[in-house]
């Protein structure tokens, strides 16, 4: 590289380049102190238990409690199951809708695309508090907006207070979350579609591959890497989610814990809620499980799905 040659010529054999350290230090210090060390600190805390005011090493005891003690395990498996369902809904609804919208937006010479793009992305920038509450109001039987709207299409009889029913609440909230975040897959896929070279599309057209066939056979394989990225982003986001459930259903993730996910479970374990006393060590244990789940997802993604990512490593 020309840069390195020049640098070598202008500064021959000066051993320590202090400025490199100065440029790196602030970021590395803040990042290490407030992100990496606490993360490892949390992992470490999960191996200890507070017995008579002092931290005692208990090995994997906390994990045994979490998986085996009915006081914890019932809630834990419930939260994990719910979280998996939360993720499945996102994968099945959010990402296909995102791909569909992106495919439509990228169709050649379609007008008003800037407007559609901007408008569809609006929910993504709103805070969970707004989204959670706004949908709570809309779906509320007291206000009656949802049944009123369903009446227009003759479905009024299907309305029930979804957020208040155990069997529907989680799915309803997952769909609200889908509504909020559909802009992200849409944008990323849109960017990927725009970056497909014109020649490829032209070649396809010369061979008579157009319309839907063109999308399935030419474009979809080319945007698969982006779909991989979206999947892992969704995975990490979902297994780390908290705010929406907390805002819409409170820390108890009602009705009857039916919308409890790992994030809300962690919050309750850590801080305690109502009669339950907060336990930092159990909180750390749950955080460790979440860490392992997310790490596993990221590893699967890096090693199996996406070898192409190499380009983005420094």
């Amino acid at each position, binding site marked *: 590289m020309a840069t390195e040659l020049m640098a070598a010529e202008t500064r021959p054999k000066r051993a320590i380049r202090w400025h490199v350290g100065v440029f790196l230090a602030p970021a590395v210090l803040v990042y290490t102190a407030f992100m990496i060390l606490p993360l490892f600190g949390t992992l470490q805390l999960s191996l200890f238990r507070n017995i008579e005011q002092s931290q005692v090493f208990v090995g994997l005891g906390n994990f045994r409690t979490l998986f085996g003690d009915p006081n914890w395990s019932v809630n834990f498996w419930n939260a994990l199951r719910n979280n998996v369902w939360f993720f499945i809904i996102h994968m099945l609804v959010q990402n296909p*809708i995102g791909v569909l919208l992106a495919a439509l937006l990228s169709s050649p010479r379609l007008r008003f695309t800037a407007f559609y793009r901007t408008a569809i992305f609006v929910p993504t920038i709103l805070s969970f508090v707004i989204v959670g509450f706004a949908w709570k109001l809309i779906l509320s039987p007291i206000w009656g907006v949802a049944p009123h709207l369903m009446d227009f299409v003759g479905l009024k009889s299907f309305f029930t207070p979804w957020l208040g029913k155990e069997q529907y609440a989680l799915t309803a909230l997952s769909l609200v979350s889908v509504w909020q975040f559909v802009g992200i897959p849409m944008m990323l896929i849109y960017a990927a579609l725009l970056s497909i070279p014109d020649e490829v599309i032209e070649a396809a057209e010369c061979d008579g591959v157009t319309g839907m066939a063109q999308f399935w056979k030419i474009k979809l394989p080319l945007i698969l890497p982006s779909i991989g990225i979206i999947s892992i982003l969704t995975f990490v986001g979902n297994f780390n989610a908290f705010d929406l459930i907390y805002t819409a259903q409170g820390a108890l993730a009602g009705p009857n814990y039916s919308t409890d996910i790992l994030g809300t479970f962690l919050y309750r374990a850590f801080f305690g809620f109502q009669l339950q006393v907060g336990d930092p060590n159990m909180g750390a244990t749950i955080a460790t499980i979440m860490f392992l789940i997310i790490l596993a997802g990221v590893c699967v993604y890096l090693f199996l799905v996406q070898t192409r990512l190499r380009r983005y490593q420094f």
Partner: protein
Amino acid sequence: MSTATRSLPRAIGAHAILLTYTAIALFPVVLVVMNSFKSRAGIFGAPLTPPTPKTFDLIGYTTVFGQGDFIHYFQNSLVVTVASLFFVLLFGAMAAFALSEYRFRGNTMMGLYLALGIMIPIRLGTVAILQLMVATGLVNSLTALILVYTAQGLPLAIFILSEFMKQVSSDLKNAGRIDGLSEYTIFFRLVLPLVRPSMATVAVFTMIPIWNDLWFPLILAPSEETKTVTLGAQLFLGQFVTNWNAILAALSLAILPVLILYVIFSRQLIRGITSGAVK
């Protein structure tokens, strides 16, 4: 451009689907803002119509401004967001410059180390972060939030900015070196101005999650003094469950600043996403 045969029905179909989805995306926002300007009877009587002179009422807004200390929360959010943003951009750009400009031992490792935080959420370290803040006496201070958000924003900022800094012409930097400029001057005077557009992109990406975050304000700074607007709105909404005017007004007040900023910066944001830096 390709000369695809464009059929009118297909264009109409595309517009129909996109318009439908746009309506779904905007409907809740419009509904909330519209109803916040109505009287209670208007809200429940005709939720889907815009306020008429008969139903127009600002009672919700007067309640919000009378009860909640929203101006103060707003200030807190602003301080936290602006300060975190400043540090993320400054430290992030410095680190990105070091990683993209100099070859040194451990460069790749350092890059990977700093990139870890893109995938692993900082939230998982909350238990230890709280202990750290308690130990340093930073609980219930805006400083705690600023430090955490700076750490949270850095990985992605460094990742994006170093991609852009690699594109800055090395002839320019070397010309600077020949003229005797120090490495610091080269960074602040030559490189930073050139990457300003990508800094704006990073700024938008960093800002939105900080402004909207509920988790850390709830855990690290829940006191009245340090509440951010997101936490304040959450608690306010919890208190006024039955006062629909106040709730709708508070929601609208929370939506509007973000929406205005978004409309101003949306071009930047969308260009950032579609530019390929974060594919």
